């Protein structure tokens, strides 16, 4: 391939070329409520005619992965990533689990396990 008009002429500093609402087809609210730390994992089913953004998001979630991590790998804002992932959950291509509720802050067992884990880290 010789240099041509298809060459990438932007570097990383330019940021994403696609406006966020283009990726989400103009939708601004996720179909399923997701937190930054909600875990998503591919269910194994792949919807037909998946567009590249959804397919890439799905491919990143073969093991349970947080919404924040998917956003970082997709290099999309968290709010945009949530819309894509919520679609995939809605289409049953993914399952999700919300993070622990804040009420568990007084969970002595959890804190002791954390302390134990950090002692070994």
């Amino acid at each position, binding site marked *: 391939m010789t240099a041509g008009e298809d060459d990438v002429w932007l570097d990383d500093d330019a940021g994403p070329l696609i*406006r*966020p*609402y283009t990726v*989400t087809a103009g939708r*601004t*609210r*996720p179909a399923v*409520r997701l*937190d*930054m*730390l909600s*875990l998503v*994992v*591919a*269910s*194994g089913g792949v919807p037909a005619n998946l567009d590249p953004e959804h397919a890439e998001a799905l491919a990143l979630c*073969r093991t*349970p992965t*947080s919404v*924040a*991590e998917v*956003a*970082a*790998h997709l290099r*999309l*804002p*968290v*709010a*945009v*990533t*949530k*819309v894509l992932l919520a679609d995939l959950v809605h289409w049953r291509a993914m*399952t999700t*689990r919300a*993070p*622990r*509720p*804040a009420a568990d*802050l*007084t*969970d*002595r067992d*959890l*804190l*002791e*396990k*954390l*302390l*134990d*884990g*950090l*002692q*070994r*880290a």
Partner: protein
Amino acid sequence: MAYNEPEVFPTQVKILIAGGFGVGKTTFVGAASEIEPLSTEELITAASAGTDDLGGVEGKTTTTVALDFGRITIAQHDIVLYLFGTPGQQRFWFMWDELCAGALGAVVLADTRRLDACFDAVDFFENRGTRFLVAVNEFDGAFRYEPDEVRAALELDPRVPIVLCDARDGRSATSALRALIRHLLAAVPAPSA
């Protein structure tokens, strides 16, 4: 197919790493994290600051703010701890509500050369009721203050722990995290016999 096996979801928890601009939050996250710190972006629009709602981005000025985070997996207890370096600039603090929701607590990093840079973070967590400790990042060349001097300068509640740390050193950063967990544990009533 592995896809059809029942998935085991680990328990996910988060701790915030806060402090003024340039105090070493990203360095701290990177030192403690088992992965290279990841960066994500939050969208900010004049219409819908820091919410899930992208409505209005077509017409309004949109900007983004970077959010660095790292991860510590505690495999033996099936826990994943996320460390979020919170954007230091005060104008981004509306984002902190989602970050604070469900957070176990916060480490406020302080630089003794610019203690005033962490006033805002201390105020924010005090007002919000988020439990935190202050970790004095020992920069080379910084004058060493006694913890009591730092406490007085920040007008900290006597119950808020102050620890010294080197944000570049993973063991030191992890030690500050342990101090925070011990602080949190101290507030939990002992199990009734």
